[in-house]
């Protein structure tokens, strides 16, 4: 059964201190070719029946993201695909 994935990221103009902290730590790991790091939320929603993208978009808009500071995308992903791909 496919699941719905909502990605929520801070708007580009909003400062992302977490991402910056990671970016600043990279040189210590010997990584110097990273231009920027942004950190947001990935939300996986499983529906009891057919996944409902419109419903998910509504949830994202009302609850999962704050439109003042965040953007979101909603998409369908094969559930086992995501699990398999994990290392």
């Amino acid at each position, binding site marked *: 059964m496919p699941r719905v994935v909502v990605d929520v990221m*801070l708007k580009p103009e*909003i*400062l992302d*201190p*977490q991402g910056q902290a990671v970016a600043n730590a990279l040189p210590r790991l010997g990584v110097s070719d990273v231009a920027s790091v942004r950190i947001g939320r990935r939300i996986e929603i499983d529906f009891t029946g057919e996944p409902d993208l419109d419903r998910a978009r509504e949830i994202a808009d009302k609850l*999962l993201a*704050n439109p*003042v500071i965040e953007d979101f995308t909603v998409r369908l992903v094969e559930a086992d695909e995501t699990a398999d791909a994990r290392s």
Partner: protein
Amino acid sequence: MTARVGVVTFPGSLDDGDAARAVRISGAEPVRLWHGDPSLHGVDAVVLPGGFSYGDYLRCGAIARFAPVMETIVDAAQGGLPVLGICNGFQILCEAHLLPGALTRNQHLHFRNRDQILRIESVGTAWTNAFQPGQEVLIPVKNGEGCYVADTATLDQLEAEGRVVARYIGGNPNGSQRDIAAITNAAGNVVGIMPHPEHAVEALTGPSLDGLGFFTSVLKHLVGAPA
């Protein structure tokens, strides 16, 4: 007749008892309100206290905004009911769109608790009329997500309309834009403040008594002193 000031308890509210104590010390009667009960039980003003409502797991205040009591509060606030949101309460007010902007993760990424000097920038609100313009007060801050952000137009409008209620002085504890510590809505009845005035009401337990002014202000406001 003593004023009745409601203090809402959400699951995960932490400073609700302290807010009620501050209301009592200021001379009003605290009335405890429950998140699941839409009735405001006839209170004259409402405090949304600090804490971690619903664990603050998604975004601070995001889930609390949908509590039954909030629907009533949003309506009443639009009708002029004085509402003070402290810390988590400020976050809830922003999430509920009673106040503009948003509160994000402290820029240094740590929770920070310290005694903080604020300058009261606006004494025209229901919650700050007992202060002098420009008065400096000492009030504890304690938050992990207290960094106030809004787009430039919103910030400029807040400044232009005198709706920045208090600013951090002597060091910004969380990276808030323009050192903003508290703001108000256009009508001046709804105020959100990140530091905790309810923790500065007793000499024994607080760094000062400066927090009392917020609670006495609303009493003044309620007996008809023009806001």
